[in-house]
């Protein structure tokens, strides 16, 4: 049974979710053979409102989480749209997965709890600037290390390419 959480931004968003495509896109959690490197693939992803993201641990030697930056989760500063509900997959062992559906337009930043220091973070762009309710990227703050902040692909790059992989991914 895949744990699943649907993120809704309130009543209007719930109504809107019925009107958009119910696409499902995989984001893999990956690691090198000896664990020297860990990353989300893609690291940056553009999707339409209502898309379901399926996080799958494709790393046979490690466990990972997908955790939204939000005060309700470990007291982190919010880096998802205000109207969205945060998610936390919990630890996923190899081949395990977790699904979340994003309906509120905007920029969502998330991380892997045991690997944030190693730069295992990701960014999802739902919709595009100008969409009703759109909320852009959170400003940089001291909650994140400078090295981690530098890891997020820019919204412009994600929207231009659709999906962005880490520059040094094997």
């Amino acid at each position, binding site marked *: 049974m895949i744990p699943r959480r649907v993120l809704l931004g309130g009543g209007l968003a719930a109504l809107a979710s019925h009107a958009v495509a119910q696409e499902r896109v995989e984001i893999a959690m990956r690691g090198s053979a*000896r664990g*020297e490197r860990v990353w989300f693939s893609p690291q940056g992803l553009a999707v339409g409102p209502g898309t379901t993201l399926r996080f799958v641990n494709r790393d046979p030697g490690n466990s990972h989480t997908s955790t939204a930056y939000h005060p309700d989760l470990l007291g982190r500063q919010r880096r998802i749209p205000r109207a969205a509900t945060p998610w936390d997959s919990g630890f996923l062992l*190899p081949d395990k997965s977790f699904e979340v559906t994003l309906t509120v337009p905007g920029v969502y930043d998330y991380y892997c709890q045991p*690997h944030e220091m190693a730069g295992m973070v990701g960014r999802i762009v739902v919709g595009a600037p100008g969409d009703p309710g759109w909320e852009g990227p959170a400003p940089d703050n001291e909650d994140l290390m400078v090295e981690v902040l530098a890891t997020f692909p820019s919204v412009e790059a994600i929207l231009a390419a659709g999906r962005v992989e880490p520059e040094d991914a094997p």
Partner: protein
Amino acid sequence: MRIFAALLLSPLAAGPALAQDAMTAPPAAPFAQVSTLVPLPEFIPGLGTLYVDPATLPAGPFLGYDHDGKLSATIYMVPIEDLTAGTAFDGLAVGSQTVTGVDIYYNAGHPGVEKPHAHVVLYHDAEAKARLAQ
């Protein structure tokens, strides 16, 4: 020269060996299977089925067993930050004093040892690395 040759031909002079009952899984308490302590796979490719005395975290020793329960490696996990700060990890025990090879490599972290760290892997026989690979 004679001393150097003797070192090559004899087991490496390592720390104190654990009791003989560590040679097959499961080792005696206080060792516990790592996958029961933290969310990690039961068998980790490259390291095997790991056991550790929780009181010795993060460095270990971790005892790595192959699929048949044979002790194949002793592993230490040493946070880079701790080394940089001047912390020493001395007198660590080994699963077996027969050591046929050593690998040292970087690891970005995992549940149990979240900080980026070095894995120091002591293999206890010539085929151990292959048996732990998958």
